[in-house]
């Protein structure tokens, strides 16, 4: 026989436990990032970054992991995220959809960012120096990274188109979407795909730290540079936290110093020497290409 008291008690308990996530604190600065790499790496990087921000700004900072690019953009639009580390394309998408949002900063490497094309060594395709050489990729099994990635899809597709290669020229008349830069390397390395394109930074990191993962892969081509990742913040932070908060936030990020040991740890995780100023006009070209490839409507 079921006891009424027990039933009620369990029920109340369940309800109170389950409904806790429904009441969130609004005085927390929520930091997010596009999931372009292994979640473990991102977790470490942004938790450390959040801790430093919290220390310097004196507010609670929480890192909210996001599983896909679109969720990051939407989370920013709906103001679930206050400060987000976006790629070029996702940053432009988010900014166009969120009035008053502000470009805060970029890394030193982001103003001359590059993608790399990689091929499986078994194919014995030699590297090229001219964009026209991309024609060699015709009829191969090719994979991009995430669909909304700037360095893993948008710019590579733009350069492929420039060399007169369309997606339908690949084997199977389609290209794959691995989901992340690391996955692209793993797929090409295993031979599941013949070739792929990804972020140059991630490629170099893997070459240096994970030689096993890249042993069957060789570099095919490095693209010309373009603007990529940047921090984007909501326009209402001053109102929510305190006057001049956005300015403080900006200078905190810009003043991360590689001489300082704890700062250096963070900067290393971002693969940067320092953060530098970023402006809206830097991303005009990305916007144009995004519109051309119909990723921005």
């Amino acid at each position: 026989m079921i006891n009424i008291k027990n039933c009620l008690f369990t029920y109340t308990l369940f309800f109170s436990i389950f409904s806790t996530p429904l009441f969130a604190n609004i005085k927390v600065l929520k930091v997010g990032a596009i999931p372009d790499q292994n979640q473990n790496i991102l977790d470490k990087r942004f938790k450390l970054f959040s801790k430093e921000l919290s220390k310097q700004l004196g507010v609670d900072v929480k890192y909210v992991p996001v599983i896909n690019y679109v969720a990051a953009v939407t989370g920013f639009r709906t103001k679930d995220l206050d400060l987000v580390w976006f790629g070029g394309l996702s940053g432009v998408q988010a900014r166009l959809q969120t009035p008053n949002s502000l470009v805060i900063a970029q890394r030193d490497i982001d103003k001359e960012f590059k993608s790399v094309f990689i091929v499986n060594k078994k194919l014995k395709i030699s590297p090229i120096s001219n964009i026209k050489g991309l024609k060699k990729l015709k009829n191969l099994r090719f994979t991009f990274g995430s669909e909304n990635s700037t360095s893993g899809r948008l710019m590579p597709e733009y350069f492929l188109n420039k060399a007169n290669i369309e997606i339908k020229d690949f084997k199977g008349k389609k290209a794959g979407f691995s989901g992340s830069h690391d996955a692209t390397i793993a797929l090409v390395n295993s031979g599941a795909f013949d070739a792929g394109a990804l972020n140059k930074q991630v490629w170099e990191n893997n070459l240096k730290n994970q030689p096993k993962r890249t042993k069957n892969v060789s570099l095919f081509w490095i693209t010309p540079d373009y603007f990529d990742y940047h921090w984007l913040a909501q326009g209402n932070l001053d109102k929510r936290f305190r006057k001049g908060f956005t300015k403080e936030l900006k200078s905190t990020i810009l003043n991360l110093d590689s001489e300082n040991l704890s700062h250096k740890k963070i900067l290393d995780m971002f693969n940067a020497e320092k953060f530098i100023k970023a402006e809206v006009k830097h991303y005009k070209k990305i916007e144009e290409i995004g519109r051309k490839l119909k990723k921005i409507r």
Partner: protein
Amino acid sequence: MRKLKLNHTSISFIPILVCIPLAYQILINLNFGGVELFREFIISVFHPEINNEIIITVVKRLNQTLVIAFFSWLISIIFGVIFGILSSNIFYKIFNLPVFFYSIIKFFLTIIRSIHEIIWGLVLMQIYGINFSIGIIAICIPYIAVNSKVFAEQLETIEDKSFDAITQIHGPKFSSFLTLIWNRIVNTFKNFGLYRLECAIRSSVMLGLFGFGGIGTSIFLSFQAFNFRELWTYLWSLAIFIILSREIIKKIKFNKLNKNLSIFLTAVFFITILFTFSYFLYFIFNSMFVDFYSINSLFKSGSELVFLDFLKLIIDTIILSLFSTAIAISLPPFVIGIFNNNTSTILIRFLAFLLRLIPPPVLILILLTFNNPSLSLAALTLGLHNAGITSKLLFTNLDSQDKRNYIALKSLGTSKKTSWLLGLFSQQAKSYLAYCAYRSDIIIRETAIVGVIGSVGLGWQLQESLSSFAWQEVITVLIAYSSIAIVGELINDKIKTSLT
């Protein structure tokens, strides 16, 4: 050679023929580049990663999954009852309401039922962003509609006799109505309600794969990082979780409840639900008003869909669901029939269990390492996953069946395979086909899941349009999806009636 006669048994086997074109397309695209990844994947099945850190994550993630499942189940059952009553003819008979409302509610429920919870989730995520409640709402919407259909169907079996008897008393309309429906609703809940909790758990895992948190998210992330050992830790813990919850659900019995207690419990349920519901309303409208302007501007985005391409996507989706249904129908009896001995049966059961356990998105990603993204591959994935489910049902029915015919045939010297076919399966075929017809409703909706990842059909287009924030396209795709599912359901209803 004699002509093949069309009966339920042969119909269960004929669809296996789709494997010929499927195998052709898969074979010409086959490559062995993924062998190494696959080997690692298989080794990890028996070698999952176990340490303190991962166990804490597992518990945390399973808890999230359970929270989403439990809440969505609770809400969808309660509202399922409410909408079930509203969409049953008996309600309109007693209260003398115009049948017009009846058709409107039915139509409305059919539409929201026709779209898979994953699609609701993806669309809602675009509008409201990442939020704990989105997963619950996404599951609730189609579940309320499905539950209400079941409850309504049960209520419509109330006989005219009892209806007439009650109305002749001329008691208050509401109490006579309650008297009529009470037992039906309680019985339906007993038979069907808890089963839906299991479905809700599966759905919340699946939503997790698309970024809504819980164990699904862990599965997806570890797979994306090709960390197979971690992946299997999550998959096995999910399996244990599902088996445990099924056992617990089986143990729960409502027979001992007396009436006062059940009324009391119902009242508690309703109050909680009202609170929860008011929160959701607050949530939806609150955030709706905050950025209504920005959503509005999104709708200005143009549609770039070309009619012919769009038609092709629709046809792809239809073929995808037909092919996967064919595999789900024919593969289990085919394989069980051919490998009809004890060792193979155990092996098949284990394989079927794995196919049910591995979510289709992960399955297709594994297969993709051997093949190009194609319609056949997506159909194979979806077909295999569902064959895992239909074979479980077939096994259960075969086990509980009277084996005398089979033994008699075998002792007459008929071969093992033939006696299995004629002595065991032929008696099952009809009910098996009826279940498959029901399953194919679900398969049509599930094409969205493999479509998104296997880059086939409307699912792929939906993902592309969503990630470009092209709302007009999204709406066009949704309408197409919904129409296919509704037409499919109509056809299936015809098949089901002819089978029963």
